[in-house]
């Protein structure tokens, strides 16, 4: 084991910068839809920002679903050992 280091990727300033870059990229992918129209196949998927909202909320739903199922199905990882 080595002591924790101060790698540039782990510095709070870098992480803050990464978040900013991330948010700018996200905003850009949505804003780009003004210039690059998305021709939806079923109408609704051509709406402005639909991909973003659909991606975000289906993930939130899946994480919640997993959490709920987890409450039912999770066991200590030694469950089958004894």
């Amino acid at each position: 084991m080595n002591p924790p280091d101060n790698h540039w990727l782990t510095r709070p300033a870098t992480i803050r910068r990464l978040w900013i870059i991330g948010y700018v990229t996200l905003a850009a992918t949505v804003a780009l839809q003004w210039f690059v129209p998305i021709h939806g196949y079923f109408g609704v998927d051509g709406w402005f920002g639909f991909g973003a909202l659909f991606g975000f909320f289906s993930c939130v739903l899946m994480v919640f679903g997993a959490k709920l199922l987890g409450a039912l199905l999770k066991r200590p990882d030694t469950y089958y050992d004894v």
Partner: protein
Amino acid sequence: MFESLPPALALIGGALLTAAISSRQLRAFVVIGAPLVCLYGIWQVPDGVSLEASFLGYPLELVEGSPVRRLFATIFAIMAATGAVFAFNHARRTELVAAQFYAAGAVGVSFAGDLLTLFVFWELMALFSTVVVWCGGTEKARAAGVRYAIMHLLGGVVLKVGIEGLMISSGSLDIRALQATDFSTWMILIGILINAAAPPLSAWLSDAYPNASPTGSVFLSAFTTKTAILALILLFPGESILIWVGLFMVFYGIIYALLENDIRRILAFSIVNQVGFMVCAVGIGTEMAINGAAAHAFAHIIYKALLFMSAGVVVMRTGMHLCTDVGGLFRTMPVTMWCGVIGALAISSFPLTSGFTTKTMISQASVDEGLMLVYFLLAAASAGVFLHAGIKFPWFVFFQKDSGLRPQDAPWNMTVAMLFFAGLCILLGVYPQLLYPLLPYAVDYVPYKAGKVLFYLQLLLFSGLAFFLLLPWMQRTLTISLDVDWLWRRGLPLLARAGSKLGSPLVNILQARLGDVFAALTTSARNTMGHTGPLGRSWEIGTTALWIVLLLMVYVFAYYLF
């Protein structure tokens, strides 16, 4: 000369040679060379049946070529060769031998023209993949291997029952498009679906693969489920129930992978998820969908093996296999990290990777058929793949926290194998034209349209946002998630114990009663047959003669009467 031989023979020969050669260097040549010879053989196989035989009067078509068969055999051979480069210096000899037999089974299934030949190679795969699992060398690997073998032998029996039934009802074992309408065809479908890790029997995959050795799980990830996809393409194209089976697998894989802590088990669940996309495509069954299933299987084998290689290096170098134990490995394992990231991007079908140019064909097929619900569920699942594999795997393994571990990066041969597959992931993403001509049907599909790329970028990047915003909820715990295999790993033993506990008073009473009856019988027998009893004591000759006369009279009367 190759035209007249099954290509799988090259791998079988390679396996036998590997078992016989004791020199490590020479063995390396064989394990890498045999799949390449096999690959050459695969491309010599003409369309149509090229090798026939007969067994117990049944006509066998040992080799039948077609574009989709050649495509699958090609990727199996490429996989066997690259896997050998990855493994030859680290895996046990038994594992290398078994892996080649296993690959031979997969190539054999690819070219099997009749169901009997398919079955023989199918079982060859089951047998030697079990050996690969056992080569994990731990007690857990041994137990998981036994469960794995039982499940696959069961699947084999179900498949065989179906094949026999089909032989009796139709008189032909030829591999052709069937429909699941009667008992036999259902049995065949179920037998194949067990190998595809379809519900409810999918737990064998996530149980066995993570228990294999770091090199063994690379081989395991490639062959079994994808031969099942080929079998579905050949036997059940357009079987509409497969759409829903596939969609179930897609979401099952995501949910279980989200809950999982074991690095390689996350990847195992995502195999089920990805195979679900292919099963769904076979269910849609149009030319576009079958092309999509075949192309996706080809791309999937590459990026999934790449992910298992990356995870395998981590497991080998750190000796840890849980997300909670590792983290921060990007510092000392940059090559493994970048290869893992490329595999993760490819599985998430990020633009410019092989996943994008293949998986979107399946989505396109659902659009062409007007299957709106299927299309949106597949889109949601694509977001979910980025969530559970695309970000989760690299984040928890290579970033997350500083675990303090500073392992060495991958050895040279593993680096070569990973770089080759990472290169292929990008190559097929940038030049899908390399793959499209190999697909079973003519491809009329343009993967890169500005609007579509933007849609997928929005979809994927915002699921990335969801991951990091929900990170506190994603932290891994020292847990496993119960699956259907609970029924036989815990349920049956519990039932047996409960049964013996509940049943024991009843059994005691029964035993006591039976004892009484036996005692009464013995006493009465002793009383009548003993040397003082009426039947046992010595009688006078006159009395005996009288009895004989009486019995004879009864006999004579009975004879005349009846």
